[in-house]
């Protein structure tokens, strides 16, 4: 079947086979390689996207269910250069292998959209669904706190 939705502001039509996940369709049909696949079971958050205004794991979304929806990937949160979160993560060295980074950027960008001045606890809660196997989170939290503190 063909599924039509808006991807980072543009209308797209994607070929969807049976129960394919939205993550597979984004990567394999639409060449959108920002969302990563690590666990395929909702545990790691590396596939995080914004679907109709809420951050979700695209590996758990039935692609057919995306019909008519609005999808934003990391490519879409940073159109026109890096956003403040990405700049801060670079500055703090919050990226090592980078596999978790797109998901973290998506989840954090959504957090700052609704809470421009999140506390440390709010930052940690917002990232509870994003696993990073490299950094130990310290640099990521520091980067986001610097954005929250207006240093960016």
């Amino acid at each position: 079947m063909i599924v039509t939705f808006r991807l980072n502001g543009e209308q797209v039509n994607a070929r969807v086979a049976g129960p394919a996940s939205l993550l597979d369709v984004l990567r394999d049909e639409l060449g959108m390689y920002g969302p990563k696949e690590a666990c395929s079971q909702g545990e790691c958050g590396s596939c995080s996207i914004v679907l109709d205004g809420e951050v979700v794991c695209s590996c758990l979304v039935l692609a057919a269910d995306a019909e008519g929806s609005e999808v934003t990937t990391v490519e879409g949160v940073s159109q026109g250069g890096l956003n403040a979160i990405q700049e801060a993560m670079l500055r703090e060295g919050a990226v090592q292998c980078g596999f978790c980074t797109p998901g973290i950027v998506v989840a954090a960008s959504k957090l700052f959209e609704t809470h421009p001045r999140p506390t440390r606890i709010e930052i940690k809660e917002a990232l509870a669904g994003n696993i990073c196997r490299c950094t130990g989170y310290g640099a990521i939290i520091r980067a986001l706190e610097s954005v929250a503190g207006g240093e960016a």
Partner: protein
Amino acid sequence: MVEVNFGRRRPETVVGLRRVAELKEWEGNRIGAAVTWRRVEREGPGAYAQAARTVGSPQIRNAGTIGGNLGTASPAGDGHPFLAAVDASIEVASATGRRLVPWNEFFVGPKRSSLQQGELITAVVLPERLPERHGFGKVGVRNAMVISTVCAVVTRDHDGRTTVALGSVGPTVLRVPAAEEMISAESNPSEADLAEFARLVSEGVRPITDHRSTEQYRRHAAGVLARRLLERCLR
């Protein structure tokens, strides 16, 4: 989706429910099956909202629905203790009609419900009036993204009537009538009454030992958790 991603299931036909607006309706005590944990966390009654807040992660709560929690019928489902503690019903529909299934007839075993072929969960129906105080608690190995070792809801009404429902400590969510009867009779429970309540809860649950915990630990934790929740209701 997880089972599909891992090739454990290859369904030929799938039914996408995300865009069925009717299932997202929430009117008073009738909550549509496609209502997400995120919404329950923000708009639900006390103990149900507390349970919602512990489900998975923000991503999981934004997508996961109360209908999906029931469809899975996991003994560890965090939404079940509230439904059991307030005697909620599950509304189920098929091409031929709708029926209301009391919670204790809905759950029949681990990951098994009485849902029939061709039936869809359409809503959760809470009683018209909820008990005055209620609280949810969960014991797990960390704060986020954790399947309950024990989860529980205790309710206490103005007349002292108390209910306690626990998950992850039996084949389905369960109530402990002996503990409920004993404590409901005490209008101002003493230290000894609280200890007896905890003992009866530990005695009344039916946990197993598995990769997540042992029978003994779950039994102990169930009593401690239920007592703490009761103490919060009494405060």
